[in-house]
């Protein structure tokens, strides 16, 4: 099965497309597995949706920049999809989040997110996984990092 998944992942990377896996990747991925790069460029429409979701009278003025945590959220969505966690029957709990930023990100600025599985263990039938992410601008310079810890239950083992 591991070979099957690895072949599919290789094909996926070669074709720059996602392939749906019958077995969620979190079941087979080993520490060090890399994800992406994901293009997490945030354009105006999504920035407006973010302001609608989060904003209020006292909200700060971001000007033409984004709240960095929005970029983290965009990368997290990609990671969850690649880990196969939108599969039916699985329940994912977002347990913890770390993030750091070196500079603001502009709306529409090209940002790539590259993930790495930093931990993946099973305790009492639940997966505990941590994925670290590096965010890079168009020059390849790192502008931020994040680390997400999730707990996944409901998988048949």
């Amino acid at each position: 099965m591991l070979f099957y998944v690895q072949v599919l992942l290789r094909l996926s990377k070669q074709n720059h497309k996602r392939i749906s896996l019958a077995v969620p990747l979190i079941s087979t991925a080993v520490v060090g597995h890399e994800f992406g790069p994901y293009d997490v460029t945030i354009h105006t429409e999504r920035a407006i949706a973010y302001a609608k979701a989060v904003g209020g009278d006292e909200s700060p003025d971001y000007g033409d920049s984004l709240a960095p945590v929005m970029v983290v959220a965009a990368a997290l969505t990609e990671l969850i999809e690649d880990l196969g966690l939108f599969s039916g029957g699985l329940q994912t709990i977002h347990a913890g989040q770390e993030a750091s930023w070196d500079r603001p990100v502009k709306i529409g600025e090209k940002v790539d997110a590259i993930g790495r599985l930093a931990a993946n263990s099973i305790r009492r039938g639940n997966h505990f996984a941590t994925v670290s992410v590096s965010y890079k601008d168009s020059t390849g310079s790192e502008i931020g990092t994040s680390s997400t810890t999730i707990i996944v239950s409901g998988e048949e083992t």
Partner: protein
Amino acid sequence: MGDALTGFERHITQDRVDAYAEASGDHNPIHLNEEYASTTQFGTRIAHGMLSLALVTEMLTSAFPNSWHHGGKLKVRFSAPVFPGEIVTTYGEITEIKEEDGQLIVTCTIGCKKPDGTDAVAGQATVPLE
């Protein structure tokens, strides 16, 4: 030290959750589909955890407008789900100011509380001062 950051209340409506799904791209039905969500351990739809964290970072951006996005760090745990219809409150307090390599660094406890006073999100942030 001991100074409180200016927190705020936010009514987490389903409209906000729907908008956050558009913003983040996270259309997991546990946030959007009541029929599906009723089959989960929560029994109903829940807001994205990152939405609560986003509110906390709004507070940090207001408190440190020139430095939060230039070297700010946070580490939080998501302790409890927020349900659409609830009013949550962000909070923060400065717990330490220290110098590192000639730079003043502020450490704050941060979080977002549910109406019953329990934490939805709680943790720590560090921010370099200008």
